[in-house]
């Protein structure tokens, strides 16, 4: 039999149904794999494999109706900014190093009700601020394809764990590319749903008008399965939409004849690495062979979006992170002589450099005298970006772009230059600014064998189309069969 941890969730589910495997066997295999690989990859902040094993045994011992609980007993990993009752949620920050959430996030409740035992909490850039997971205060995560390289960020632990077969699938969060860029760097599938499709209740807030939770998986089918589980309206998140339930697996059809794909030329400019462009051009040819209608188009939003993103995201972060005051929860400094010093010392000692930089930038753009010049202008540009996407979607079903300008870079290479690090998000942030969904799927590797991601963008609440278009491509190139990480 193939090694358990290399299987996708839909494959595991079939083996559970045929009684070829038990949940205990599956979780055991993952626990062993984590034990072997964690020292190299560093994907986890907290491992809960032991609890997962107990849970698996319980599920095996009960007579589960497999017809209605197809995935019961298949474990999962959770990004460490999603609250899990009784298990630490650190956001990879010294601020929340010992924080134990007193409640479950809505997505956590949903995966619990699907009976998916959690293998643990996955590393990330502190408070999801970063593109390489190097901003974690807990540990550095390494890319399973080349341990000297970053896994991307901020959901780097989630993507690396899926790529290294340490979890079968994982939840991440995406504010400006934090699911898609690590998925691209690690050769796995990452989906950022439409803003409002998945409840953010219990997700530690970074930039509330941009944050979304989504799946990081081995393939497109698993992505659709996990999206089915987590999508839906929630009265605890007033931004979640009340739309009829969709079965996303129904869109996994190997037929995309006549689908109209736009290729925005601005996303293939000089900042994008040649090897990335070459692979995407090959992907475009494959889409033509598959019967899609592919056309060049214009979507001049990348630079506007990046500038707008860093204004809006930092502004919202400066407000959201105001709650960390050292009083109700989180880190409290030892020395202070009054309340203001308690706040200031606690925050100064517990936040990392990037978090401080963004709080200060956000406070600056919201401060008196600069609000109109930065924040108000950015909010208007956000409308412009949305309008431009709307125009594109009048003509096309899907837009195709790179996920990141390069493949995974060396650990440490961009740490001293924040602006250079921010440019890693140039192809992904506009999607959050416009609230539309996008999926990152691998489309090949570069000359050093590092994965290259392709981004497929859909119109709001049209996840079905991007899943369909992604699925057809995946079936054709069989990336997982042809390329494997070294770790």
């Amino acid at each position: 039999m193939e090694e358990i941890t290399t299987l996708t969730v839909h494959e595991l589910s079939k083996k559970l149904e045929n009684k070829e495997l038990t949940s205990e066997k599956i979780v055991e295999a993952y626990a062993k794999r984590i034990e072997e690989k964690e020292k190299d990859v560093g994907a986890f902040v907290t491992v809960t494999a032991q609890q997962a094993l107990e849970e698996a045994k319980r599920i095996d011992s009960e007579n589960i109706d497999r017809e209605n609980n197809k995935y019961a007993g298949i474990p999962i990993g959770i990004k460490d900014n999603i609250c899990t009752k009784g298990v630490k949620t650190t956001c990879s920050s010294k601020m929340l190093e010992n924080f134990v959430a007193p409640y479950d996030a809505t997505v956590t409740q949903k995966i619990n009700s699907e009976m998916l035992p959690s293998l643990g909490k996955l590393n990330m850039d502190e408070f999801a601020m970063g593109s390489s997971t190097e901003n974690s205060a807990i540990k550095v995560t390494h890319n399973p394809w080349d341990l000297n390289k970053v896994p991307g960020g901020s959901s780097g632990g989630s993507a690396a764990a899926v790529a290294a077969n340490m979890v079968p699938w994982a939840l991440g969060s995406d504010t400006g590319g934090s699911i898609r860029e690590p998925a691209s760097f690690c050769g796995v599938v990452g989906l950022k749903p439409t803003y409002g499709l998945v409840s953010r209740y219990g997700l530690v807030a970074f930039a509330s008008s941009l944050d979304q939770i989504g799946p990081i998986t081995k393939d497109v089918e698993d992505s659709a399965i996990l999206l089915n589980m987590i999508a839906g309206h929630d009265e605890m998140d007033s931004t979640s939409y009340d739309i009829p339930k969709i079965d996303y697996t129904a869109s996994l059809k190997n037929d995309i004849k006549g689908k109209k794909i736009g290729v925005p030329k601005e996303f293939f400019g000089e900042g994008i690495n040649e090897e990335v462009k070459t692979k995407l051009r090959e992907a475009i040819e494959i889409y033509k062979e598959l019967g899609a209608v592919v056309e060049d188009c214009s979507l001049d939003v990348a630079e506007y979006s990046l500038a707008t993103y860093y204004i809006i995201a930092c502004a919202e972060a400066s407000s959201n992170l105001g709650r960390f005051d050292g009083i109700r929860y989180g880190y409290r400094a030892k020395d202070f002589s009054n309340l203001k010093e308690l706040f200031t010392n606690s925050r100064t000692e517990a936040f990392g450099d990037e978090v401080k930089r963004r709080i200060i930038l956000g406070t600056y753009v919201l401060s008196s005298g600069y609000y109109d010049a930065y924040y108000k202008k950015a909010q208007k540009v956000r409308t412009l970006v949305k309008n431009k996407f709307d125009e594109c979607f009048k003509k096309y079903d899907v837009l195709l772009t790179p996920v990141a300008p390069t493949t995974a870079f060396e650990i440490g290479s961009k740490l001293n230059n924040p602006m250079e690090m921010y440019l890693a998000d140039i192809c992904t942030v506009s999607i959050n600014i416009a609230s539309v969904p996008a999926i990152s799927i691998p489309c090949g590797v570069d000359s050093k064998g590092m994965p290259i991601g392709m981004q497929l963008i859909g119109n709001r609440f049209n996840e079905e189309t991007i899943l369909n278009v992604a699925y057809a491509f995946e079936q054709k190139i069989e990336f997982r069969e042809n390329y494997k990480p070294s770790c």
Partner: protein
Amino acid sequence: MKISKEELLHIANLSDLKISESEIDKYLENLEDILEYTNVLESASIEELDETIGANDNENVFRKDEIKEFEGRDALLQNAPDLEDDMFRIPKVIN
């Protein structure tokens, strides 16, 4: 966009963060880099446009104003750095 040292320290104070003397130049350089990048917005045609406030076009979202019991009270209080009789203890505020 040039930011003065005084302005930076003022913003840090508003943010309840302390910037040490040795960090000031690095912060100024990083912030100016980022703000300079935002100059690309100058060329955006936005005169006629409204601001996008929040991400979706939902009007108001209402729910009944009902009290619901939160069951994790003890677990919640356990996260506090300093408690006295189930109350958060802070330094004296009023002299």
